[in-house]
């Protein structure tokens, strides 16, 4: 057993951390307050090759493994979860094209993501289909050699800034099976009948763009179908382990960022004539925060390793990592605010933002409750 990172992974972490310190941290509070998408930061991130690094080398990416992506995501989220998500999500949905797309789709849609010329998104959730993904009602009907799409998608990351989306649509409503009859179709934002409305007022990750997408008789060519007609859900499910591990890494990053800020503040702040870090109550908080973060990191790395080398047996582990790391993120951010006292309750310091940002990791990509259902289902031998 070897818990060490490779020299390349260590260098990746250090250089991304340097980028984050110089380019993300100084502007994070401003983008959060304004709920603005950080175009200028995205440009620099593209120069460094941070966007969609999981895209294979032949399409301009690096072909990053799940573990390498986890290290990258952790560092970005430790600097700022909102901007971190913007960078980490630029290639959302690309995994479907990488795994199931045609050669032409790969050549068209993948290189622009890496170069920062396009952003994409994955559109699954609907106003009435959140955790219950099989109740998706966006319809795609075949008309000659085109798909005609009608419906709404909700909570779509990159909704108003994205250039194209992999959209889950019901294509074959007559099949009996709950999980077949859905397909993944690429919809570009310049198609007639496509509209996106930004969702404002989010509690956290406010730099990240979230929108509702509306498809009103949107027509796309039949070759925009990704993979096999009717197999959309089964295609998506193959990536749940990977995407949940990525959210676990977000949680680890948030916990790390919050814990580091608490440690720094505790050493600066003086009360009763000494640094508050000399009080055992504060020391124990810091000890617990760092221990929990390390435990979440271990679980997340193991899950990432599992996705990369033992993909058949990683589902329970991925759900454990996602559930645990997101809980640690919220708990550690909570304690980080507590260590800051009143100063943590206003936005002069980062921890209040981390406290707000952390919550989403328990909600998206399968809620905490769904993750526990999956863990229990695996334990009780009722696999999918």
């Amino acid at each position, binding site marked *: 057993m070897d818990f060490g990172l490779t*020299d*390349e992974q260590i*260098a990746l972490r*250090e*250089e991304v951390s340097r980028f984050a310190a110089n380019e993300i941290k100084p502007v994070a509070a401003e983008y959060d307050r304004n709920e603005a998408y950080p175009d200028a930061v995205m440009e620099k991130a593209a*120069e*460094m*090759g941070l966007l969609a690094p999981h895209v294979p080398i032949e399409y301009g990416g690096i072909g990053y493994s799940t573990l390498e992506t986890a290290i990258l995501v952790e560092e970005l989220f430790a600097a700022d979860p909102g901007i971190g998500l913007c960078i980490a999500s630029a290639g959302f949905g690309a995994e479907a094209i990488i795994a199931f797309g045609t050669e032409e789709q790969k050549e068209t849609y993948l290189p622009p993501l890496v170069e920062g010329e396009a952003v994409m998104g994955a559109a699954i959730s609907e106003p009435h289909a959140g955790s219950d993904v099989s109740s998706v009602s966006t319809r795609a009907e075949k008309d000659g050699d085109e798909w005609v799409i009608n419906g709404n998608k909700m909570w779509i990351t990159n909704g108003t800034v994205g250039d194209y989306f992999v959209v889950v649509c019901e294509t074959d409503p007559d099949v009996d099976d709950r999980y077949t009859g859905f397909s993944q179709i690429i919809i570009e934002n310049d198609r007639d009948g496509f509209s996106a409305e930004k969702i404002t007022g989010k509690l956290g990750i406010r730099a990240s763009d979230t929108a509702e997408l509306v498809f009103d008789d949107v027509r796309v060519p039949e070759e925009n179908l990704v993979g096999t007609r009717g197999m959309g859900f089964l295609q998506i499910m193959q990536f749940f382990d990977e995407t949940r591990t990525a959210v676990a890494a977000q949680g680890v990053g948030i916990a790390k960022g919050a814990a580091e800020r608490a440690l720094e503040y505790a050493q600066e702040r003086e009360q009763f004539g000494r640094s508050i870090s000399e009080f055992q109550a504060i020391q124990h908080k810091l000890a617990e925060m760092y221990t929990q973060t390390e435990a979440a990191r271990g679980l997340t790395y193991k899950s990432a390793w599992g996705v990369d080398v033992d993909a058949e047996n990683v589902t329970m582990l991925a759900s454990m990592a996602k559930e645990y790391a997101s809980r640690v993120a919220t708990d550690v951010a909570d304690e980080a605010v507590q260590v800051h006292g009143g100063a943590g309750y206003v936005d002069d310091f980062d921890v209040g933002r981390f406290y707000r940002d952390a919550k989403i990791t328990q909600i998206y990509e399968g809620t905490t409750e769904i993750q526990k259902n999956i863990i229990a289902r695996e334990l009780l031998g009722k696999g999918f």
Partner: protein
Amino acid sequence: MMKVLVTVKEVAEVEEDFVLDGTRIDDRFLEYDLNEWDDYAIETAVQLAEAGDDVEVVSATIGPERCEETIRMALAKGVDRGIRVWDDTLASVDLLDVNAKTEIFNAIIAEEEPDLILTGVQAHDDSFGATGVSVADAAGYEWAAVVNALDLDADAGVAHVRRELEGGVEELTDVELPAVLTIQTGINEPRYASLRGIRMAQRKEIAQQTLDDLGLDEGAVESQITLTDMYEPESESDVELFEGDADAAAASLASVLREKGVGAQ
């Protein structure tokens, strides 16, 4: 084919609070990173490589194995290969002075025969600020120090350089190759190593060389300088609080600045 040699150094950075241990700063309070000036020199070299047809960039450093991480980051930014000089003799030297560095780099130059050598103006830990110029003298190269703009005409074998002098005066100089330029911060905006560059750097060569490999013996690194003491100076601070409205405070600030010599004549 043009060859650019960049000398780089991993420097110690001292934390805010530290403890002195004789004439050393206790290792616990040191962090190691690439010398800031060298980052600009690397960027200069990599930009030359990107602009030219056939330019090889080689970095050379003196330092223990720990430095490889820093050197590899230079490789990730586009340097083609690295040379790292270290052995037990160097490890036992207390203070590596300018002469010693000059001897070592001069031996590398004899081997590599670069057309252009870029160094940082200084290293921010020992701040001798002399190695680049001393190397030029020993190698018989032309030189220009504190360069903050470079326009290289490789075909004509001339480097047109700009040097920023005191008092806002800028000097434009033509330097014939082969030459050593000591690079000032601000000449460019050093890039981050790209993720792809970081991956490629893992496969690039860092050749380790000993003094013996370079044809040198311990006499070459014997120092004529002895570090006699290290202490923290007493610091004095002076605070003046400006009161009143913005106009009054601004006027007071302006008069203080004028007194201190800030502002136009």
